[in-house]
């Protein structure tokens, strides 16, 4: 499938690293429904929520009891709740706006992935996939764990008894099955180690359909697209497969029941499940890299389902492959030489967020070329030179007609300044209040900073790249007290702050001097570090304003 690479200029996908976010060692990320907040789980057991617009930290969530690395984070549909699974076998449900713990439960094994039910407004029901047993449904309200079947027993009786026992049935010890909810949360799709996709009604713990995946290799990841129309599986045979979901969006259970009843003449059992399965999903595309035959990690869809992205699972390289749904590879993004551990595509914008082994979150965005006609509307941008032949009388001076300016504006038309159109983006019920933003809490300036204001203003006006005055030494003495230290960031960055806000000309100079092709981004630091690297501070200056300053005219 090495089709020619589509002209990148036409694509709506990211191309370069714009910046990176840092907060300890980040292990996993998840966007909320609108992409305005990014939750990141850290290796020290804390979870931080970034305000994606300002790329700053909106909230930190930390459980004092838990200090094990976070394995996955998951948002509820409207962003009110956050589910965090950690390496100490715990699952914790948090309320986002208050930062309070709602519920916590300990499982038998460490859950590698946990997902909240996407169909409910305030879900307390989630799906957890542990390392070496069957996926399970955890209900926080009734504090009950239900194991889901990962294989269809080879018996006529399709109804597998509800598994409340601790031992998984006939699964080999190390065969993690991947699972996900469908879009409205009524069904669970499980990809098992035999290379089959099972459609399960988790309420009655019944397997309703079975879809064999060609190749029969164990399924490592299974993910739905945002609109629920496509499903992707990542298998051990290094292939990503896209399936089209044939089931209707609503009343899925009923449709499946009807399908089951309508199939006559086939014995109950595996065959029937397979037939029903063929009506649920059809194979659409397969993606693999036939050259390097690499394993894929964390594949997912873009927000609109047009693109499929997969990270390379090879250690030591940070490669992200982007395909369009037709199957063509459109881009390979290469990052710094750190293995990739997690990937997420922004729900709305063409932005990808990738987590590297070093714990940094890289933000990939489109490389913007300035639209000059936006600055001067009379000018039209041409692709190439055009020959222009003027008319015979074009430049003749005809004084009396030049002054005529027809005012053809009909000023009597009604103008409506209040009506707002319904948000076309919203694919959800607008009656529920969505948590899009966390209120900003400005961090107060300390007294020392306020005293130094006058000096910093003078510095800003004066030389920029000259090293800041000796006030710094005074500043450095103030280490921040606690780990989270918003203060620390303030203090530590004050030294950088002066350098960070030079005048226009200076920033232009800096931009021209040091223009990294792919980002050293801006650092967002919450931990205090007394000895901040000068280089990082330097890169802070010009990175985020590169484009703007270079285009300063």
């Amino acid at each position, binding site marked *: 499938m090495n089709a020619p690479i589509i002209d990148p200029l036409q694509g709506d996908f990211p191309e370069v690293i714009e910046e990176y976010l840092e907060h300890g060692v980040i292990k996993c990320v998840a966007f909320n429904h609108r992409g305005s907040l990014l939750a990141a789980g850290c290796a020290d057991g804390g979870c931080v929520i970034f*305000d994606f*617009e*300002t*790329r*700053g*930290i*909106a909230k930190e969530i930390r459980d004092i009891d838990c200090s094990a690395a976070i394995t996955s984070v998951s948002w509820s549909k409207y962003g009110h709740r956050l589910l965090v699974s950690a390496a100490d076998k715990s699952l914790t449900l948090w309320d986002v706006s208050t930062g309070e713990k709602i519920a916590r439960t300990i499982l038998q094994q460490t859950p590698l992935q946990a997902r909240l039910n996407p169909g409910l407004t305030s879900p307390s029901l989630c799906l957890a996939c542990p390392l070496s047993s069957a996926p399970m449904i955890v209900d926080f309200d009734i504090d009950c764990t239900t194991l889901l079947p990962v294989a269809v027993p080879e018996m006529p009786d399709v109804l597998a008894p509800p598994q409340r026992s601790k031992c998984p049935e006939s699964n080999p010890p190390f065969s993690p099955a991947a699972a996900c909810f469908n879009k409205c949360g009524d069904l669970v799709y499980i990809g098992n180690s035999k290379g089959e996709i099972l459609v399960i009604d988790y309420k009655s713990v019944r397997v309703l359909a079975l879809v064999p995946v060609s190749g029969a290799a164990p399924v490592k990841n299974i993910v739905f697209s945002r609109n629920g129309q496509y499903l992707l599986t990542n298998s051990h045979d290094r292939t990503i497969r896209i399936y089209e979901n044939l089931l209707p969006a609503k009343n899925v259970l009923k449709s499946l029941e009807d399908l089951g009843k309508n199939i006559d003449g086939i014995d109950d059992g595996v065959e029937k499940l397979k037939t029903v399965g063929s009506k649920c999903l059809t194979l659409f595309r397969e993606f693999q890299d036939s050259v390097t035959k690499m394993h894929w990690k964390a594949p997912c869809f873009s927000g609109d389902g047009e693109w499929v992205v997969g990270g390379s699972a090879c250690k030591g390289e940070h490669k992200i492959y982007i395909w369009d749904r037709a199957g063509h590879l459109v881009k390979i993004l290469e990052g710094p030489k750190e293995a990739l551990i997690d990937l997420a595509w922004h729900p709305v*914008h063409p932005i990808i967020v990738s987590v590297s082994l070093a714990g940094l979150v890289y933000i990939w965005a489109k490389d*913007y070329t*300035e*639209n000059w006609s*936006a*600055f*001067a*509307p009379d000018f039209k941008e041409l692709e190439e030179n055009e020959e222009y032949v003027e008319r015979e009388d074009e430049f003749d001076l005809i004084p009396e007609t030049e002054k005529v*300016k027809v005012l053809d*504006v009909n*000023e*009597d*038309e*009604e*103008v*409506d*300044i*209040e*009506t*707002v159109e319904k948000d076309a983006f919203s694919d959800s019920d607008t009656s529920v209040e969505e948590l*899009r*933003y966390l*209120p*900003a*809490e*400005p*961090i*107060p*300036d300390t007294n020392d900073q*306020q005293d130094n*204001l006058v000096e*910093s*203003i003078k510095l*800003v*006006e004066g030389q920029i790249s000259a090293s800041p005055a000796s006030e710094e030494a005074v500043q450095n003495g103030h280490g921040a007290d606690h780990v989270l230290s*918003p203060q620390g*960031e*303030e203090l530590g*960055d004050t030294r950088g*702050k002066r350098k*960070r*806000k030079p*005048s*226009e000309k200076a*920033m232009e100079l800096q931009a021209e001097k040091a223009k990294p092709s792919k980002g050293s981004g801006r650092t967002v630091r919450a931990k205090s570090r007394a000895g901040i690297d000068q280089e990082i501070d330097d890169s802070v200056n010009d990175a*985020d*304003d590169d*484009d*703007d*300053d270079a*285009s*300063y*005219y």
Partner: protein
Amino acid sequence: MAEEVPATTATASFTPYVHSQTLTTHERAVSSVKFSSDGRLLASASADKTLRTYTINTDGDPIVEPAREFSGHEYGISDVAFSSDARFIASASDDKTLKLWDVETGSLIKTLIGHTNYAFCVNFNPQSNMIVSGSFDETVRIWDVTTGKCLKVLPAHSDPVTAVDFNRDGSLIVSSSYDGLCRIWDAGTGHCIKTLIDDENPPVSFVRFSPNGKFILVGTLDNTLRLWNISSAKFLKTYTGHVNSQYCVSSAFSVTNGKRIVSGSEDNCVYMWELNSRKLLQKLEGHTEPVMTVACHPTENLIASGSLDKSVKIWTQKKD
């Protein structure tokens, strides 16, 4: 005393505004007045280097009472803005800084440093996690409220930036300048989306978005106010009759009782036009010097105006 323009067509439904209160808390000219979005507070900024807030009591006849004073700027203040939850106010001053204050306590929280000339205009975005400011240094800056860092510097204009505003979902910023241009920017990326310019380009003294974000109200120093449609980049309405050729006089949409445009003027009056018919409905007289700024209450029929005569006047609708 309010003066009514003689009605020719059916303006029988129009109840004139009358002067209700004068607040003389400032010692020098008042440069900007703003209402909070919940309508409980009014803020005013002045050349006397202070901000003041007032509580609005709307039970019965609206009464406005001084609440707090915010001092800390070294030079006069040109603009003030409330955050959406009215917990914070931001001020833009001639000392080249913007300051973020806590409304309840009156204390200074943060100072935003970066502009290299007078900071002239400021606004919060609806989510109130970002502040946009325009300055005499010809740039527009976007700041992060939490950390106070300057997120972006937009090379917006080639003359002082006179006004900046966010649209209702915070995705666009409009900026205006003495160079005669209004520019629309993408708030997320900082890239210019559009430039609005007419054939003649008189200095633009003020700009703001309409409540639905589709139109902008542009005031120019040729005594004209225009309503532009952003997507078609053409102006739809023109409002004249007032005087505006020297100062950056602000104007506002009044939607509580029929759609109107309210503006200050250099002939000491507040002008009110009907939005669609462009008819001049009323001239509110009372100030003794040019009226620099007007603001309309979000829910009540209340207008506040600030003037070079150091006073803030409150106008309400006459109750029959």
